[in-house]
């Protein structure tokens, strides 16, 4: 059902989201308030 290529892309999506949210979290923690 899912090709190997799609699985690799899926892992990358999850990875990039985690990095993006972590960066936003750091931005908030460092500068907010």
């Amino acid at each position, binding site marked *: *059902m*899912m*090709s190997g*290529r*799609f699985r690799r*892309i*899926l892992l*990358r*999506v*999850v990875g*990039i*989201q985690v990095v*993006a*949210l972590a960066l*936003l*979290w750091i*931005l*908030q923690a*460092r*500068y*907010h*308030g």
Partner: protein
Amino acid sequence: MHPVNWVIILAYLAYVVTDGVRRTKGTKEIEGYFLANRSLPWWAVGLSVMATQLSAVTLIGTTGQGATDGLRFIQIYFGLPVAMVILGVTLIPLLRKARVYTAYEYLEQRFNAPTRSLCAFLFLLSRGMSCGVIISAPAVVFSAIFGWSLPWSVALIGIPTVIYTMIGGVQAVTWADVKQMVLIVVALLAVILVLLVRMPVSPDEALHIAGATGRLKVFDFSFTVTETYTFWSGLIAGTFLMLSYFGTDQSQVQRHLTAKSTDAARSSLLLSAYWKIPLQALVLLVGVLVFVYYQFSAPPLLYNPAHENAVLQDRAQDYELLQDRFGRALVLRDAAARRTAGALDDAAARAAMDDFLVREASVQEVRRQALALAEEVTGESPLDVNYIMPRFVLSELPIGLSGLFIAAVIAAAMSSISSELNSLSTATVVDFYRRWFRPRASDAHYLSVAKYTTCFWGLFACGVATYAASLGSLIEVVNRYGSFFYGSILGVFLLAMVPRTRGWGAFFGLCAGMATVAIVAFRAPSVTYLWYNVIGASTVLGVGLLLSWAGRGLARR
């Protein structure tokens, strides 16, 4: 505006039209015209998906929101990557396998003709109107900024888009989207660069100032259905919204149906999953930096120049008094901001920050009074969030870059309008004309009808955009009505994936879903629209399953 800026804008318009018109290869049959013979590469489709979603409102409204409200708006997109992954393994293979032109065509294969026609009709109604709103938003701003008449602004954006969409079909739309997307990102990066270079403080100090005013607060973990911008609303309700938009709205479905394979279609959606949150953060960050920039450089008291002129004509004395107070408050705030940026230790920074916040509040108080005056004089909504970015671009950016940014705003509008016109034409021809009136005509006939319907929807949208102000309440009704059925249509597609569900279950489930959302909207208006998608989809699924189960029971008897 400087002539160089005009040359850039006109060059962009000339290029996008001629390039689109040239892309008629393979569009002699309707599969080529509507779906590019299902041959496009994943990256082009992916950029087209992103360009379709990113409209001029994003560039002028969202940046303005970043300047006034900060980054918290981004939470609405937290469900997007989840939705893309779900669509990649569910609806995408289903629609590709069915070899359909529209998402609604699949509903007839799975359920019945009334369900298909009702969903297609709801799509035409809402997208036809929203296309007008997409043209109207930047056109109104251009009119106020440049002093053009509204019909001229609407024509500048609408007519070139109709020409290339009508002649080149989906290929012209997709390849124009790719270039428009590149232009938009380049313009945003260039604006950030200029802001960083021209600000008298370092990026770190700029972020400290923005953070002090709450503009870098991204996450709100409170769980409430009355707030739109929270982590949970974005993640749960946002996932439903994105599933509806990317999976069941023809303006997006048609993008991934043009991909050359199922894997390519999935990858095209995953491009948004990768880049939407970073891109949206970039757009909001531009707004935040504009806010910081205006701490050190005097902003206009009213960003909307039309309101400013009206107030100056009618209440010049009051306005000048306010401007005097505004000027004094700005000088004090500027000094406080510089002290905040230059504080040597934590205690000094804290004291300077407190002083800065007091000064910022007094600046905002004068602005509130000026906005109230504008409302009194013009009788219009005084909100001028959409004018912050255009005013900044025209007064603060170097020659050439302001032209580039205005061209990017037009590109963002065109990329959304063209995809919508293309999909409105497809749904009109495939779901109504071919289905109900001329099922066995030649491809040449359908092709010419498709071109006429593209032109019709383009003129309809331009008409809605021109009269948007007088149609205000009607458009609001349609938009509100649109959010009533968005989740319900998603519910029908979810039901289609459940084995042994029946056509009439789906049809009456859809009606029940819309009715439930309408009841919630009127009886509990504090529930944010994001949750309508969850309520609509769940009701359709529940009622549809129940009726299908009851129908099977009756049939057995």
